[in-house]
């Protein structure tokens, strides 16, 4: 009987320690999870901002302006266009 009690006591002590450790690890992981979730949200936000930036710089009016004024480009006039029909097509 005593022997059994002793064994149970040891088991109890280990279990108690395990509970404490598990709790600790769980807190740590939880904090990490929170941190990562925050990061994910931040990256999401950054992605949105970059998309926005991209479309701002890629706005048609801006590109058109740059093409005509800085790069001296223009739409080809009809006379400058030569359409080539695909083989067998019209």
């Amino acid at each position, binding site marked *: 009987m005593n022997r059994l009690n002793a064994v149970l006591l040891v088991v109890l002590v280990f279990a108690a320690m395990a509970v404490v450790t598990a709790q600790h690890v769980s*807190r740590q992981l*939880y*904090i990490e999870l*929170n941190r990562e979730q925050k990061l994910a949200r931040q990256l*999401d*936000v950054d992605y*949105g*901002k970059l*998309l*926005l930036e991209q*479309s*701002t710089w890629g*706005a*048609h*009016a801006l590109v058109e302006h740059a093409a005509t004024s800085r790069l001296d480009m223009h739409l080809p006039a*009809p006379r400058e*266009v*030569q*359409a080539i*029909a*695909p083989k067998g097509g*019209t």
Partner: protein
Amino acid sequence: MRAVSVNHNRRLNNPGPAPSMGPGRVRFVLALLGGLFLVLILRAMYMQVVQQDFLVGQGDARFRRTLTMEANRGVITDRNGEPLAISTPVQSIWASPAGMQPVPPEKLAELARLLELPPSELAGKFADKRREFVYLKRQISPQLADKVAALGIPGVAGQQEFRRYYPAGESFAHIIGFTGVDGKGQEGLELAREKMLAGKNGSRVVLRDRRGHIVEDLAAIERPRNGQTLVLAMDQRIQYIAYRELKNAVELNKAKAGAVVVLDAKSGEVLALANYPSFNPNNREGTTPEMLRNRAVIDLFEPGSTMKPLSIAIALEEGKARVNTVLDTHTYKIGPATIRDVSPQPSLDITGIIKKSSNVGASKLALMVAPQDFWTYYDSLGFGRNPGSGFPGEASGRLRNWKSWRPIEQATMSFGYGVSVSLLQMARAYTIFANDGVLLPLSLYKTNAPMPGKRVLSQKTADEMKGVLVANSEPGGGAVGGRIIGYSIGGKSGTARKLEGHTYVADKHRALFMGFAPGKNPKLIVTVMIDEPSAGKYYGGAVAAPVFSAVAGGALRVLNVQPDEPTNNTLLPESTPVPADF
């Protein structure tokens, strides 16, 4: 020591007149103690039972927090995934003047500099000690908010909010609309699709320790459901071209307003829908209700001559006439009213009626059709019905019941008076010419498979009318102004007088052009409406047709449609007369 012991002995040995320790006294003390215990127990019970909710609430209020997890509002993109509306987080700076210590002047000055507000205004807001909450500045960038937080003024804090940005600016302003400062849709699709875009905020209940760290989740986390991405049928590039050309035309012709609709001729998707005047959705200062109007969808007008191809088609469909039937097109009378043409001809065939835009011819053809059939046909084209695009406030137009029609009304309806439509409805009605007689449902959203349409005309009639409209764009026709170099087109111009009160005024017009391109195998339907051009020219063929040409030409280039008339496409001299058209 001794004395004490003596005393002690004396007491033991000699109780003398000791206070009576009778049973009454013991009972009294016990009762007293018992009574106190009872009070304690009652108090405990009171707190446990009666006050429990209050106490638990107080405890929770101190350590338990419900955090809102904000859902991101959905992105709106065009058909190629280009973003048209995106939310990004911004900070709003607020203060709680009620509990604030006086702010040191140098910090106040620094805060004012950061927020770009006059220091006196800030001081004024801080001075109002009755207020618990006052916004100092809303929607500033997170970087700036960090700087404000670094000042460390107690009682001044930031709060995260979302702000909507519209990269495409004014060209898409009417379709997309905008959200209010609270992030809810107020206009356009932001309003119409609010439910889908808004998503649902989530929440989590947490236990916080004294330092504010989250220690534990107390309840299952309710995850936020982010708003869905809304993919429009529009193509940003075509929309831009449409808006640019429309703006140029409205300014050039000193018009009041204008609108352009571009449809995909095979799927019924709305590729572009532009209105002018427009506004900047990113900064709506100085925006008037006039500028907010989505004219293409909301404004109703009488379509004038652009109705003729539609009304003539039913006469062909019913076999009342054939394409080569020649009609007497002298001015004639229906009751007291006279039907006359702007450029009278003695006789015309169907192509001639379209080319010369003959009211006489169109009305004679219309009157061959029974009123009920005529009404059924217009009804099946969607006139007087909601076009079903799902846009808020979209107009149905007006088509009166055929039972009350008089012959003159049926006649005028054939050339586009006495029936009111929106530009979007007209564009949709023209899908029958571009799509072998099948009327397509409209879609503002990208569709994967084309939705089934409804057959209104037989393929034969549709082909014939398509040929007539293509012929109309050839020299001598009314739609030459809409020609695109390299492509054939088909179309009809119109110049509708505007109704003021009960009379049609002679000096106010709507210049219209409805057409499709390429003419042989239409890919696009483009409809143009210019309201009250006042710079001299006002004919649809002179004012609206060039817009058609530029928009359809640009769109065909964007869509990489192969030119169907690449060579020997003669350039029309500048002086080509645009036929008078009514």
